[in-house]
């Protein structure tokens, strides 16, 4: 498998980034869903949000790399059997996934940094606070983060179902291409 994408296939970098982000998105959703219900005296009460935030910040950098890589090594062309509607739909769908993920990460960042505190990433380095003066910042960012997380994870589920539909019903190479075939 080559590193870069060709006009017919995804290369190793794009494939790795895709599955890494998929794992992180579903993992962060599960972790976030679980951690907000933790009891104050749970041993995870402090550590789970720290891990959630640290992974979230790292995911942001991974997404930046992913965007840069897209520019550097464009995705393969659409499959010839896909019609105009399928292509258009997938374009908008992917745009929503990218945009939604960035807004989701930004809203999470704005909750934790609303009072001017930075976010420590696994204790290795700290991302400083920037925007701190939006009125009711942590509450508004919190609502955006919660609703968008649900929207994104549902949409990512639809994205996965669509891939399965291409594989099992249309019997085309859409899903296989994401495994480098």
């Amino acid at each position: 498998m080559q590193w870069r994408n060709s006009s017919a296939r995804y290369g190793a970098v794009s494939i790795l980034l895709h599955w890494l982000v998929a794992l992180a998105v579903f993992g962060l959703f599960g972790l976030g869903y679980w951690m907000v219900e933790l009891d104050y005296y749970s041993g995870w009460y402090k550590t789970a949000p720290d891990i959630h935030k640290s992974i979230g910040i790292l995911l942001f950098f991974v997404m930046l790399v992913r965007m840069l890589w897209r520019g550097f090594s464009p995705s393969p062309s659409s499959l010839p059997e896909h019609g105009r509607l399928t292509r258009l739909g997938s374009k908008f769908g992917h745009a929503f996934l990218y945009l939604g993920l960035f807004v989701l990460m930004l809203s999470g960042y704005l909750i934790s940094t609303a009072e001017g505190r930075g976010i420590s990433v696994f204790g290795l380095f700290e991302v400083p606070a920037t925007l701190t003066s939006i009125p009711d910042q942590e509450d508004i960012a919190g609502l955006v983060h919660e609703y968008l997380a649900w929207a994104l994870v549902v949409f990512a589920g639809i994205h996965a179902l669509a891939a399965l539909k291409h594989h099992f019903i249309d019997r085309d190479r859409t899903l296989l291409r994401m495994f480098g075939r």
Partner: protein
Amino acid sequence: MLKKTLATLVLGTALLGAGSAMAADYAIDTEGQHAFVNFKISHLGYSWLYGSFKDFDGSFSFDEKNPEASKVNVTLNTKSVDTNHAERDKHIRSGDFLNVDKHPTATFASTAVKSTGEGTADISGNLTLNGVTKPVVIAATFIGQGDDPWGGYRAGFSGSTTLKLKDFDIQKDLGPASQEVELIISVEGVRQ
């Protein structure tokens, strides 16, 4: 119409004046920010956590000669809670604690003032917090009064009371050391 209103106003003022010969009305100086509604709660039993409500307003009437005729009214915006930690503030505003969407204001209205010594008094009143109204007693201390350098007249007090979180329907249990919170009020009023 105007005449009638005026007449009522004059009459009302006259009656009010007769009832409390010397009592003056003060507006709590929130504009110059010489007023604080703070609270203090134990963290795990190991230390004190302090917080503050940034947005509130109120007034009191006070007569040094007749302190038992004093009155206090304070209204605060529960959303303005601040403990210098965004995530904690968000949590305090949530349904686990203050339910600020449902109960955006908390109020205190005094019902009786009982002198307890030189410059001290117990202020009884109704506190409404998280939608629950309960009688509380604030142990208050008169701090000082007099002319300010800018042409006004000021008087200041501090006071505190201890609340059980459960009494005000606060759901989250913070552990055995943190069942109660102390409310600490420090206000300066400008005579109207």
